[in-house]
């Protein structure tokens, strides 16, 4: 049976526009792969390589991983004259950045290429190679995988014949043969469900002294595995109901009365999602585990969670999309933070870092949203420009959903640090003599202890010494 790939009608317009440019293009496909069919919601061509300083400001550095950083620092600065000459790192860097702009449920699900017949023909193995490399590298630092399929889409548009070919390739298997997929455009009523939640996090991490990972990003990646595990085991309700994973997410009444609304972005069905972490009782008591740590980390705060699934999605699909967003969003914040700052290692002391905050904007017409993570010093225009470059869309309005803790002078406000962890206590052993006293003065004491001395982004702890 031929697998169906359904593309949003905007995709058709986008391809027509690219055709008119009369150049070859490569780019990434954004969409959703479900057990039943593939959804393509957006295509974005990989932007031309640009001057080094600009690329740096756009965060083209792909991860905190020093080994890969060196390679990508020297991309081909010129656009090659043929597809088969292009550097796969160039596409990968783009894909990596795009994947950081996606809400749960949406992924970079493949590659598209636009070229004359001959160029396409000679580039076949190159395209496949890029596809494999994308799959491998994009999944490299995924701490908890929620993926159901390893298929990826390769879409090719022959600019000479205007013929479109869509195939799927199992990207986990280098020997797999491409399978043809039926490509269809979708128009008319909205076909997405938006899942939203606001999640309060308090994640303590101890970095074992035996750990060889010296960089903060590696420590975070290792440290977040456990949290990712508990998210994987979490229980999720939709509009206050616990549902069977095999059921379809929407019930009849959800669809009713929505048929006649044509403006997709207004009519998108939204479901509130609530997440519960399990607190399983262990079989048999364990002895306390004691280890020496070289560092302790706390991640504390509130994140906005958004995910999109098709109106045909099962509850299972929706659960996976939400879990994906929680874990991915957290990892992206960490990665961006560590890429942006040279975190000093091996030094004693405590610092508080302020990772970028998340904002959302609409993908035109389809009702879907994409997101971006923004540091304190970034202006709206810069963000819009980045979205334009990476996603090839004009954005008018940015929805600022999160507030940076540094935004506000009220660091001592209990709600901002509502779940202080034990690690905090290291800074203030002297106030613990009397528990009653401590309870009352806890928040104000913490407030006093924290003084903002570092520059615009990091905060140095002042010890009361």
């Amino acid at each position: 049976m031929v697998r169906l790939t359904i593309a949003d009608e905007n995709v058709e317009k986008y391809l027509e526009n690219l055709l008119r440019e009369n150049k070859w293009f490569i780019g990434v496909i954004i969409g959703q792969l479900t057990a039943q069919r593939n959804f393509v919601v957006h295509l974005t061509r990989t932007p031309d390589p640009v001057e080094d300083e600009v690329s740096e400001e756009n965060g083209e550095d792909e991860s905190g991983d020093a080994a890969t950083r060196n390679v990508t620092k020297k991309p081909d600065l010129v656009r090659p004259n043929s597809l088969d000459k292009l550097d796969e790192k160039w596409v990968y860097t783009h894909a990596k950045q795009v994947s950081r702009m996606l809400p749960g449920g949406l992924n970079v699900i493949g590659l598209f290429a636009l070229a004359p017949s001959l160029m396409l023909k000679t580039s076949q193995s190159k395209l496949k190679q890029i596809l494999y490399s994308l799959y491998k590298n994009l999944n490299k630092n995924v701490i908890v995988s929620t993926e159901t399929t390893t298929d990826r889409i390769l879409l090719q548009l022959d600019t000479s014949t205007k013929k479109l070919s869509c195939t799927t390739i199992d990207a986990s298997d280098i020997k797999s043969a491409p399978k043809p997929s039926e490509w269809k455009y979708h128009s008319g009523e909205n076909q997405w469900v938006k899942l939203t939640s606001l999640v309060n996090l308090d994640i303590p991490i101890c970095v074992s002294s035996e750990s060889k990972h010296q960089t903060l990003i590696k420590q975070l990646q290792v440290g977040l595995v456990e949290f990712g595990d508990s998210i994987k085991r979490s229980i999720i309700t939709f509009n206050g109901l616990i549902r069977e994973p095999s059921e379809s997410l929407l019930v009849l009444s959800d669809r009713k009365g929505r048929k006649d609304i044509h403006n997709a972005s207004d009519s998108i069905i939204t479901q509130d999602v609530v997440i519960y972490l399990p607190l399983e009782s262990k079989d048999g008591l364990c002895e306390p585990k004691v280890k020496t740590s070289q560092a302790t980390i706390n991640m504390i705060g509130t994140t906005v969670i958004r995910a999109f699934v098709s109106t045909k999605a099962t509850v299972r699909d929706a659960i996976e999309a939400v879990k994906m967003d929680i874990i991915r969003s957290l990892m992206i914040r960490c990665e961006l933070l560590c890429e942006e700052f040279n975190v000093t290692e091996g030094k004693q002391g405590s610092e508080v870092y302020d990772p970028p905050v998340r904002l959302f904007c609409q993908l035109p017409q389809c009702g879907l949203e994409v997101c971006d993570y923004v540091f304190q010093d970034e202006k709206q225009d810069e963000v819009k420009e980045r979205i334009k470059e990476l996603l090839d869309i004009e954005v008018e309005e940015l929805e600022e959903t999160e507030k940076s803790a540094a935004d506000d002078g009220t660091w001592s406000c209990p709600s901002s640090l509502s779940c202080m962890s034990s690690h905090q206590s290291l800074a203030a052993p002297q106030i613990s003599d009397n528990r009653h006293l401590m309870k009352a003065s806890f928040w104000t004491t913490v407030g006093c202890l924290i003084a903002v001395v570092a520059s615009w982004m990091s905060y140095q702890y002042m010890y009361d010494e």
Partner: protein
Amino acid sequence: MATTVSISKKTFRTVTNGQWSGTGVQGYVVGDVDKNPSESFSISCVWQSKIIESSDLKEDVESCLSHFPGGKNVVGFVFLPSERSVKNLIDNDQAGIDREFEEAFDTYSVWLEPLCLAQVVILCLFRHSPSDREWQTMFFVMNEESVTKVDCSFSEEVKPVIKMRVRAGIDITVSTESNTDDQLKSALDYELIRLQNQCGNFVFAFEDNTVILERPGSFVGSQLGWKSCRDIVKYYNEKEGRPSGTKKKNAAQPQFIIPVSMLHLITIEPKTTLQYAPIIQHHIGTFQSTSLSLPIDVLAEVSEKTSFTELFSVLSRAVYRQITALFNCLSLYTQVPYDNECLKNGWGEVFLKPSEHKLHTPEVFHFKPHCVDTSITLVYPKGTTEKELERERLILHNHLCLPLDQPLLRRGSAGLFLKQTAPGGYLLNTHIGLNDPPVKPATVALVEGYYSYHHYMQDRFDDDKWGCAYRSLQTICSWFKYQGYTERDIPTHREIQQALYDIGDKEQKFVGSRQWIGSFEVSYVLDHLLGVTSKFLTVGSGAELSTTGQDLINHFQTQGTPIMIGGGVLAHTILGVAYSEVTGDISFLILDPHYTGGEDIKIIQDKGWCGWKDMSFWNKTAHYNLCLPQKPTLV
């Protein structure tokens, strides 16, 4: 309608036999208060507490209640009047009584507010003369304005309650820079506060997390349509195949306890408070990090009338209290320096130096002492010996007015009331649910506490026709184990034989043989393995057993241990006696070790493997020896 107060006879006896001293407020009255149709208090326990200042009341009450199932409350105070006002009490001199109370309590409202009650019970304890052993009681009801004397009724009847048990594990990590006691304690304090802050987001789930009870008392995800606690009971009754509504339960079957799990709600309402995006705190240094899973194990009792909002609050508060109690235990036992013995036991990890402090995982235990009307929940540090905990047990016995000559709160006796079988699958207390003894009118005295039924062919061991005394001995050993007298496992046949060889009673070839043992061997083994001495009763013939009535009554009333009786070629266990002084009729509650079948309580009771036997049960001509184990005096 008038306010009523009720207490069961055994609780009353426990309170009045307790050791009380001083004057003024000396303890809390723990129980339930039912506001419909009129206010009625039922007292299930008292908690002696030496220093009660009204200013510290709230914290003290919380720590008191952490020992009781969720749903129980402090409903009043134990009050010891000054000696001079005892006469006023007896004479019912209202002015004198008022004066006494005003002096002791000052403003009444400061005592009521922390308990959130409009009126409370005052259990007044006094003695005519200091040499009296038993305390006299008088009950009062105190509201904001006045103190009024009330009558107290004795009721043995336990109101139908819904029992729930919340079990969960909360992972915590405590990190300190230098491993001093101060640092560890302050790190624990902060971790406790962190958890206490999260407590409101701990929600409760039923039926494999398919139904979740949230804070406002609403059930989320409920496909079951629960509208009230009554619906929950009905649901579980149907599920367990129990007839609903029937008041008369099978007594042998412990009441079903609804299992509840706990989840951490991490989603928050938008815009409720200022929310900030995540920050990362990074501390570099050398830390000692201890991680463990806090074992939450909370019992709760609510009535069918309880609303879901109340139910949530009962569970939530009980969990909060237990978290506090678990941290208390962690904090209290960090100071235990480990000596060589601990290291040998494997409690210390290799990388810990003996001078450092370490944490013990706190462990939750539920007890049901026979002298109070409620279960008691305690937290003990894992990896400590009973000897190390003796001081703590003494304090607890005092708090609860428990007798100081028998162990009631040792870990060995914990949790058995929640089960039908002992570890290993042995049936517990097989006599529960039997019909009354055929002798009437009679004094009935039975074994006290828990034992397990040991009989032929158990443990995949064929001892048919020779092992009956061994099995009887095992039942006696189980009693000492389940009463907490010993941590030793119930000995196998071989261990019993080895013990007899070790003390020089038998030769080497006896070990591993199929030779019988008798009452004296039983007593030697009890002495050697458990340090338990025994008394003996000897009768020349079975017919003479009818004369042992009073002795057996005395034994069960003072010792309460199972008796091994050997005569001819048979050994049995006596679990109780019914004896009529008037007619001389006697009946014995026998547990028969010759049973070779499976662990089926119905067969065992119906076929008389455990049951009341009259004189005809005994061999008229055989000589009988009865081994009466004497319980050691300890706590």
